[in-house]
């Protein structure tokens, strides 16, 4: 999957040098971070063998509530954030209870959730869009640092591309090494990509999630129960509790993502905000190696999967083929999944052949 990511990046960079513009890279990083938070949440649910189709609606509801509580009830932002995240977590509890205690199917429950939450979002917002997040913009846009990335200017200025030299605008700083007199003497060989807070959020959440999944008893139980619920239950794992917790993690992270998205986008339109985001999150998790049959998945995979989707989307925009956007994204996911499947088969076949050869040798 990492390979796929790199391929997409390189191809885009070569043919559309503007892709590696620091600002553009910063954008991609920011979006990846935001979507990644969502993806990590849904990964937990997918690992238990469940699904959450209501993330998009959850985003809308959280966004609307967030805006409305701040504006209408004059809650301080911090309190509003806590409130909406608590609410989203509670909704996860409800899902979990319905799924474990009433034995309803996750698909059905979260499908209803999708509809209900969207409806509540519209009711909350009362038919108009919700805003007023701009004062919190620093949570997303504060530039706390930047990293140097080599070669960017070269690619950017077309040295490496098949395209003609693109005359740069004179007022754009940073690309050229200047001599003392301020004249251009050559291209810098690196450029600064600015970093914004979302990457920190993602990093923190991803690290915590990865630890939770791989190093704790909780994670172990989660995987066991995702693969074979009965076995886990017979071994004394509190399967119901685990499932409920995983839904709570998912909706909680969806709540966090909802807050971040609404701050980032700045306005929440209750009827369209977050439409189909659940599909993006699920697609990212699947691309990242989570199996919808449960029991498998890695956090770093999810992050890479999200990055693929974001880079792809940006790349499509660079190529100006927005009309095909969905088709390309869908196609890439499909190809990724097919390639994965084929690779797995080839490996299995090769291993079988090797083992056969080994056996032959042993017996000979």
């Amino acid at each position, binding site marked *: 999957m990492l390979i796929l990511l790199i391929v997409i990046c390189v191809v885009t960079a070569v043919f559309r040098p503007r892709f590696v513009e620091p600002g553009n890279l910063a954008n991609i990083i920011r979006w990846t971070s935001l979507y990644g938070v969502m993806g990590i949440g849904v990964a937990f649910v997918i690992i238990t063998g469940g699904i959450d189709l209501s993330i998009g609606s959850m985003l809308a509801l959280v966004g609307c509530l967030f805006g409305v509580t701040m504006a209408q009830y004059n809650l301080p932002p911090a309190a509003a954030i806590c409130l909406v995240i608590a609410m989203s977590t509670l909704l996860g509890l409800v899902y979990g209870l319905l799924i474990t205690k009433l034995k309803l199917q996750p698909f059905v429950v979260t499908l209803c959730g999708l509809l209900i939450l969207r409806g509540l979002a519209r009711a909350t917002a009362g*038919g*108009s869009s919700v*805003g007023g997040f701009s004062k919190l913009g620093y949570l997303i846009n504060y530039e706390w640092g930047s990293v140097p990335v080599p070669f960017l200017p070269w690619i950017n200025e077309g040295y490496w591309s098949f395209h003609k030299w693109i005359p740069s605008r004179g007022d754009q700083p940073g690309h050229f090494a200047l001599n003392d007199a301020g004249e251009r003497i050559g291209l810098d060989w690196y450029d600064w990509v600015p970093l914004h807070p979302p990457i920190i959020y993602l990093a923190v959440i991803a690290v915590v999630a990865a630890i939770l999944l791989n190093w704790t008893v909780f994670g172990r139980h989660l995987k066991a129960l995702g693969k074979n619920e009965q076995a886990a239950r017979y071994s004394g794992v509190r399967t119901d509790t685990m499932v409920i917790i995983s839904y709570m993690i998912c909706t909680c992270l969806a709540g966090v993502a909802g807050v971040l998205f609404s701050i980032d986008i*700045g*306005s929440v*339109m209750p009827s*369209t905000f977050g*439409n189909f985001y659940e599909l993006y999150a699920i697609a990212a998790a699947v691309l990242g190696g989570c199996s919808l049959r449960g029991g498998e998945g890695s956090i770093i995979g999810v992050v890479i999967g999200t990055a693929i989707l974001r880079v792809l989307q940006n790349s499509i925009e660079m190529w100006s083929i927005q009309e095909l956007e969905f088709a390309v994204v869908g196609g890439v996911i499909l190809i990724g999944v097919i390639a994965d499947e084929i690779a797995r088969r080839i490996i299995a076949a090769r291993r079988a052949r090797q083992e056969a050869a080994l056996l032959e040798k042993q017996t000979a």
Partner: protein
Amino acid sequence: AIGCSSESNPSGTSGGGGTAKYDFPVTHGKYTVVALRSDSGNHDRAKQNAEAAISKYPNLNCMVGLYAYNPPTILRAVENAGKLDDIKIVGFDEDIETLKGIEEGKIFGTVVQQPFLFGFKSVEYLSALVRGEEVDVPESKIIYIPHRVIRPDNAAQFKADIEQMMAGKAPAPKLERDDYDTKEPVSLAFLTNTVDPFWDLAEQGVRCAEPIFNASCDVYHPPTASAEEQKRFIERKLNDDCQGLALSPIDKENQQTLINRACEKMKVICHDSDAPETNRLFYIGTGNYLAGRAVGKLVKEAIPDGGEVAIFVGKLEQLNAQERSSGVIDELLDRPIPPEYAIGGDAAAEAAESKSE
């Protein structure tokens, strides 16, 4: 009676535009507005809304469709219900089927904007601004492009014009000045608010203007009409070598920061829908409110004896929908034109009148 709710959100978000909150049905004199229904931009929803309204209000006299796709869906719904004689239809925008309906006498009339001019003028002004030339902008920072009223008599001619535009063969409109300097190529962007035939006309205008002003213009129609898509586009343009941007903000108040950021980097103007609180240089477009009032006048003509009116729009979250609908309602309720729309508006309205007659 929630269906209306173009109430402005106390958070001071959108929903402004001078719209008061209405409690439907509202009655004034002969006219009663029974409902204002939105469909989130879904055509199927639009048709269902129209059908439901016909059933729900047995005494409906007039149906008004304010987004381009509304009048044709209303027409079909009315036809199917066999109520063409009972219900008059008044439209907005120049959907081909709307025009056909007018020709056939099934639709009473429509008020059209001139998106072709939006596109053309945007490129004209932006390329001049980018090259550092002077542009005549009125005090109000609003350049009105007059709307037109289409009735059966001028529908055929207008339809022909539209077809010509769509084929890319429309003659270029008159330029403001004829001494533009067009040596340096400029790179511009034209951002609309959704995918619609309406915006195709605007794009034609842009394309028509590109060679004349030696500009290359990236036109983007956000497919699901979301603020997010607009944001992504603008952010991309910020990192591009784009020098001028004309946009139709979907959610002006909450996009303020974004638009102001764009203003720092390039020349920004608004078209179709304004964002007056930002640093955008000026606004080109129809006065949506006044166009709404023109629709209201058409309604009055259509049902001179008064009656029940239902209004259909796409996204009530959008300013143009709010302005148009409040224009219609205010006209029917004989409210005065709020001062903020009166600026430069009278002249525009008169221009519209004279053009259509």
